[in-house]
């Protein structure tokens, strides 16, 4: 910083020869300018923090409402088999995801109550045979492969672990769509800094990797956490040939190979 200041001064004094008046003025301001420079620094600093932390997230996401205000809690209470009553596995091991209209009409051929949302649903969709354009919070880009079967059926994970307590909601939350990627905000997480408190707060690749690394460690396989991997990579590059062969799954990443999560 100091060298910069000196340079600045040098430049100003050169300028002074040709324009005496501003020189005088500049000299006068010199005392106060340290403060104003700092002030501008702080203004810029604070403004950009505000932009980065508050304005940017506001601008980045557009808000959309679900076509029907769906009450998960009510439905979970009414069905026998929890989430899988509507979000079920097909016989071939594929996961049905968001229910189709046909499933809803099983109960909602006609309105069951007085709820205006249900009436809207019956009138707009059931009667017209139109599929409801639900906005899916957990939709991933097309390059992602995810097997519900592997996680729920084989690893016996709970839905909540990734999806959170969505089954307890009475109204759907606002769907915030990333204007650049078109992906839901829930993938990056509500927290713009990417900090998560719960396992279901984020659904990025790193979140998958984090869990997989933990799982693998518990099984004493050679899968490393990202940090470990970073340092081990340095060791590997510096001392080639020292790695233990045969215990890891992937050659490049020490995690799983690409196709485990990509298609």
């Amino acid at each position, binding site marked *: 910083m100091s060298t910069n200041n000196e340079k600045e001064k040098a430049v100003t004094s050169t300028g002074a020869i040709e324009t005496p008046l501003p020189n005088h003025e500049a000299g006068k301001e010199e005392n106060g300018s340290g403060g104003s420079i700092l002030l501008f620094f702080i203004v810029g600093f604070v403004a950009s923090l505000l932009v980065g932390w508050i304005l940017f997230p506001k601008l980045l996401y557009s808000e959309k409402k679900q076509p029907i205000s769906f009450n998960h809690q009510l439905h979970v209470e009414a069905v026998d088999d929890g989430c899988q009553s509507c979000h079920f596995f097909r016989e071939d091991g594929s996961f049905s995801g968001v229910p189709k209209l046909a499933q809803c009409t099983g109960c909602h051929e006609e309105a069951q109550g007085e709820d205006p949302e249900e009436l809207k649903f019956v009138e707009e969709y059931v009667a017209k045979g139109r599929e409801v354009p639900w906005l899916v919070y957990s939709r991933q880009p097309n390059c992602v*492969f995810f097997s519900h079967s592997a996680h729920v059926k084989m690893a016996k994970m709970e839905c909540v672990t990734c999806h959170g307590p969505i089954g307890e909601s009475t109204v759907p939350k606002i769907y915030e769509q990333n204007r650049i990627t078109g992906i839901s905000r829930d993938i990056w997480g509500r927290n713009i800094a990417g900090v998560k408190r719960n396992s279901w707060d984020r659904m990025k690749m790193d979140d998958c990797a984090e869990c997989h690394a933990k799982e693998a460690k518990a099984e004493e396989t050679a899968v490393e956490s990202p940090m470990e991997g970073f340092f081990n990579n340095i060791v590997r590059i510096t001392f080639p040939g020292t790695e233990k062969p045969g215990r890891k799954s992937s050659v*490049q990443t020490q995690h799983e190979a690409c196709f485990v999560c990509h298609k």
Partner: protein
Amino acid sequence: MKQDQARKYGMVIDLDKCTGCGACMVACMAENNVPFKEDESNKLDSITWMRVYQLTNGKSYPETDICYIPRPCMHCEGDHGHSPCVSVCPATATDYSIKTGIVSQIYTRCFGCRYCMGACPYHARYFNWWDPVWPNGMEKYLNPNVSPRMRGVVEKCSFCFHRYQQAMNKAFMEDRRELQENEYQTACTQACPSGAILFGDLNDPKHQVSMLAQPDSEHSGRPKNPKAFRLLERLGTNPKVYYISSREWVRRAGDNYLKNENPGKAH
């Protein structure tokens, strides 16, 4: 979860049975959303994960003979998984899975440097010079299990890995961890009307592929079957695609053998 017994998926192609009909190529294109252009006669930029090459014995009429040789990705294991393409990828967009022996690829991660194409001695990798275009309405047949690729990325045969995933999904539903031989088959294997392509786990001695190729684990998987050979055997890529031919000139065409060398007795 327990570490599964490592599988090593591979292919055995019987060149005596292969008729060069090209069904494997189209089965692959239809299964894997491989695009097509108006003019595909420049074979350098024509994307064919599976390509059937024609070999000739170089003799003149009427002693001349031809043989067809289908070439998928060889899914080289190299030395402990150091396949030529995986080693050079600066983007970690391609990887070798020790669990399945498959060289996988994340298309969206690839940034198109094409080092892997240079490294691959089998020309099994293809670059998307253009964005794929399906004529109006034809995108209806696209397979949701394979993501369509965009301009600027490299793609190649995946041994229809999505079919493995689907087979595993079904197995998990039935509380199984193991797959039957016929549960995971590539699209080309399934389609081949001659039954020339076999696919399975080279590590499983009960699978047809290992019975036919008889890979020698002491010698980087070299086939013990004297009629079997691999392409560019002596390059050390340790490919997982084996070929069988009863014609000696075909076996010799698999690598640049000298006159006094016999590919059947290479080791």
